[in-house]
């Protein structure tokens, strides 16, 4: 995938297919440590113990009720391409947590891309599910949470088109405010 936000959309689809009612997406950028961490945590049915070690194998099929696909192996490759790694933790009946680490300032680190579009599609396409999106850049945080949104929206469903537009806009503005998703050292070349 050309953007990390596409990978995140893909992994979140796995969470939804596993029957999750809550999906938490967190991104941390640590500039001094040159580290970018993405975490997708869900409360779905989890991955059975015997399958867990093979879950990042691109040849493990998803043609049963198990929604394990290419998404994880593509993300693993994307992380390892920039000296990072992918971990999958899971407990049957409780949920799954996918953690991808990347070197922030690596030339092959895919740009974050449009998180507004990803969260917009997730939230408006699955209005009964709870989503949390939290993005931290060296201590500055942006956050969005559907529980809070529902309280404010009252009778208006999260699948209303104006909600989609709000999510896209709010995330775009919010991330810009905290200086998210830059390549600080690489950008020095272009000064």
């Amino acid at each position: 995938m050309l953007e990390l936000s596409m990978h995140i959309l893909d992994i979140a689809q796995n969470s939804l297919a596993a029957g999750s009612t809550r999906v938490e997406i967190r991104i941390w950028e640590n500039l001094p440590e040159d580290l970018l961490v993405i975490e997708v945590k869900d409360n779905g049915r989890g991955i059975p113990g015997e399958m867990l070690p093979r879950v990042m194998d691109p040849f493990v099929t998803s043609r049963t009720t198990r929604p394990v696909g290419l998404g994880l192996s593509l993300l693993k490759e994307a992380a390892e391409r920039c000296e990072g790694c992918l971990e999958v933790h899971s407990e049957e009946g409780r949920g799954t947590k996918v953690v991808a680490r990347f070197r922030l300032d690596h030339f092959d680190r895919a740009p974050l891309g449009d998180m507004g579009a990803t969260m917009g599609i997730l939230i408006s396409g699955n209005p009964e599910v709870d989503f949390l999106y939290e993005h931290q850049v060296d201590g500055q945080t942006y956050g969005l949470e559907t529980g809070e949104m529902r309280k404010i929206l009252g009778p208006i469903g999260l699948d209303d088109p104006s909600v989609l537009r709000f999510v896209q806009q709010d995330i775009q503005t919010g991330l810009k405010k905290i200086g998210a998703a830059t390549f600080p050292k690489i950008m020095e070349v272009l000064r």
Partner: protein
Amino acid sequence: MKLKDLAERLGWELKTRNVPLEAEVQTGYSSDLLSDVLANSIEGDLWVTRQTHLNIVAIAVMRDLSGILLANGAEPDPDTLEKAAEKMVPIFRTTLPTFEVVGRLYQLGVTGAR
């Protein structure tokens, strides 16, 4: 051949404004892995890629490339075009897939020789 003549012959869309296209292009490099281009491109290479984000301009500047050709109809990000204009890096766009456009470039004498 000069960049501008290649662009005309092969029907590329010019994406940057007010950037000189007089460079003589004799070699090219094709890769979507920026670290690969950083390591293996040479000065004057025309770079064929599908990557569209700002970092491609950084690479072009660092390696003194003659220009960037975006294949498969890839559209450059707005900030990519802005920086490219500032740093005088020509960016073109073609709807042809990489393999096809590289083949046509080869026929016009632009090789991958290092």
